[in-house]
Structure formats: C-alpha cells, structure tokens
C-alpha cells in the first residue's frame, strides 16, 4: 500500500495503482518516425509528440488513447513520442501505464531542431504536436496544441480517405 502511494505521488497519477508500463520505451529519430508511418500494416498513423510536464498534453491524452483503441481494428496505428529527458523515463513509464498504453512508446533522440524540422518545417516546437499520416506514410494533417476526440477522428478519417 505504501508502495502504491509513493508511486501515485511520484507520477501524479490518478488511477491504475502502481501499474508500470511494461511495453518497450524506445528512442526514435525523425526519419525513424517517418519510416514507422510508412511501414505496411496500417491505413493511418497518428503520431502524438508530448511530455509528462505539458498540461495540454496530459489533457488530450485520454482522448487519444480512446481513439487508438476504438480504431485499431480499422487500421489506425497510434504512436506516442515523449520529449521528456532521459532522467524522467520512470515518470514516463508510470504515466503511460496509468493511461493504459500497452504498446511500444517512444522517446525523442538526437537534435531537437532536426527532429522538429524533419517532421514538419512548419512545426514551431510547441507541444503537444500531432501528425497524421496516410497508409503510404505521407503526412495528411498536422497541428500544434491540444485537440479533442472529434478532431482526432476527423483527421484519421481524412488520412484514410487519401490512400
């Protein structure tokens, strides 16, 4: 019980007890993100760049998880990429576990400016940032700032329609 309390306190979690993200947490560069989006097997890939310390990122996270779960069967690949520093990996894992993320998640690696400009030169670096790719790995939509479930769904619909 004490362990659970410590866990909740450290990660500012609200539920899921002491669950820890058991899926891999993998370093990723921008070209690898693009390659991942182009990998066969998905009709659309939604990439969300976030951080545990970013309030709007945390706010939109549950909606993203819901969209990912509901639309996985329709061919949506949901990719979470954290920009948290390496010394915060434990916090990232706890955050992901508390929100039910069981798939592989990612941590940005390399020069942030290169990462930003490679994913989209129009991205200013503000968080959160969302990129939706079609099944060929072509960027269909991008925006900065938090969004709701409706917008996520619409952007996925659009990406799937551009196949």
């Amino acid at each position: 019980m004490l362990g659970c309390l410590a866990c909740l306190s450290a990660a500012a979690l609200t539920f899921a007890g002491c669950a820890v993200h058991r899926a891999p947490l993998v370093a990723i560069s921008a070209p690898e993100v693009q390659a991942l989006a182009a990998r066969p097997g998905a009709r659309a890939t939604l990439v969300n760049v976030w951080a545990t310390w970013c309030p709007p990122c945390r706010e939109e996270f549950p909606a993203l998880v819901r969209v990912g779960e509901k639309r996985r069967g329709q061919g949506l690949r949901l990719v979470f990429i954290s920009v948290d520093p390496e010394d915060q990996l434990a916090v990232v894992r706890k955050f992901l576990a508390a929100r039910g993320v069981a798939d592989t998640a990612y941590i940005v690696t390399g020069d942030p400016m290169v990462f930003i400009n490679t994913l989209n030169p129009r991205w200013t670096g503000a968080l959160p940032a969302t990129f939706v790719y079609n099944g060929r790995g072509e960027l269909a939509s991008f925006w900065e700032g938090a969004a709701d479930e409706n917008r996520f769904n619409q952007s996925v619909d659009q990406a799937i329609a551009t196949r």
Partner: protein
Amino acid sequence: MRTNRRFAPLWVVPVTLAAVAGTSFAQTDAPAVLAIGATAPMRETRMMGVDGKEITLADAAGKKGTLVVFMCNHCPWVKAWQGRIAKVGNAAVLKGVGVVAVNSNDPAAYPEDDMAHMKDRAKDLGFKFPYVVDATSDLARAFGATHTPEIFLFDAKGKLVYHGAVDDNKDERSVQRPWLMQAVSSVAAGKPVATAETKSFGCGIKFRGKSES
C-alpha cells in the same frame, strides 16, 4: 544531446530508415510567425511590468537593438533556460540592446503565471530588464509566438534578425551552440547574425480569449 539508446530493448524490431516524402499535401494548422527582416508589431501597446510601471516595446528598444523573450513561470522548459535568459538579457542591456521579457499565458490556466509569481521570478533571477504581462495574449498572436521560451531579436533598424531558441541544450554544461548569446553579440556590434532561425521544444502558450479590438 540525447543520443544513447541504452533504454531501448534489443529485441525491438528496428524501423527502416527509408526516407519518406511527407509534407506536400498535408493540411497544417501552424501559425504565421514573424519573418526574418520584419519589424516588431504592436510597438506602442502598453504592458504592465513587475515594477508596477507600464512599458511598450518602443520604450524598451535599445540603440543597438531589441530582444523580446516570450517566457512564463510554470513551464519546465523555461525553468531550464531562465538562468541563461537572465544572463544573456542582462548582458544585452549593458551592450545597448533593449530587453523585455513577456508573459502571454493565461494565469487562469496556470496560476504560477500570475503577476505575483512574475515579480518573485524576476527578483530571484536578477532581471535588469522589464518582465511584463501581455494581458490579451495579442502580442504573442501578432508575433506568431507559440511556445515558451521563444526569442525574437531585432537589430538597430528594428528588423528581426534572430528567432528561436536560447541555445541547443537543456543542460547548460552541454551547450555547443549558444545561438542567442552569439546573436546578441552580433547585433550589438552591428554585424549580421550567423544563424537567424532555430527551434526547440517548449510549452505551448495558453492564449487568453481573443480580444475584441
């Protein structure tokens, strides 16, 4: 620089490094940011500073140039760089470059970004330049500023010559490219800025509702 991958499990299937074309038809929702060479908008708009005095960008302008820093109090990214902002800003003032730090965040969203906390922060950091409230967030909108910290540096003629990050590393001991410090030195010397645009991650500005003016 985060380059090591010691936390990546070895069994993870490596992703292909094939280059993918990507942005040609994308619908983007990115703001129009002030372009290099542009002049500062809203130069005569009065903003309240932590010293209780109102000031405009025109008031803050220096003979050699003007440095506008969009920042706030709550953002961990700002906290990582605020000491360097104070250091470069105070040095800029001594070189004849006017400096103003601007907080455009809505304190209703982030209580730590209210005036009381701004006063404490400016005092703690030893700012020798104004730290003001963009009370409508319209200055940030006019600049196209989206996150904190975000830097805009104008030369003696009022032209934007540098936009972007303070430097290239959250850890000050690991900085290799001190972009802002170099840009300020160039502006103070009347020389061209070598690197005009850079980027970094940052906290999205929490804009207030649009003003009616």
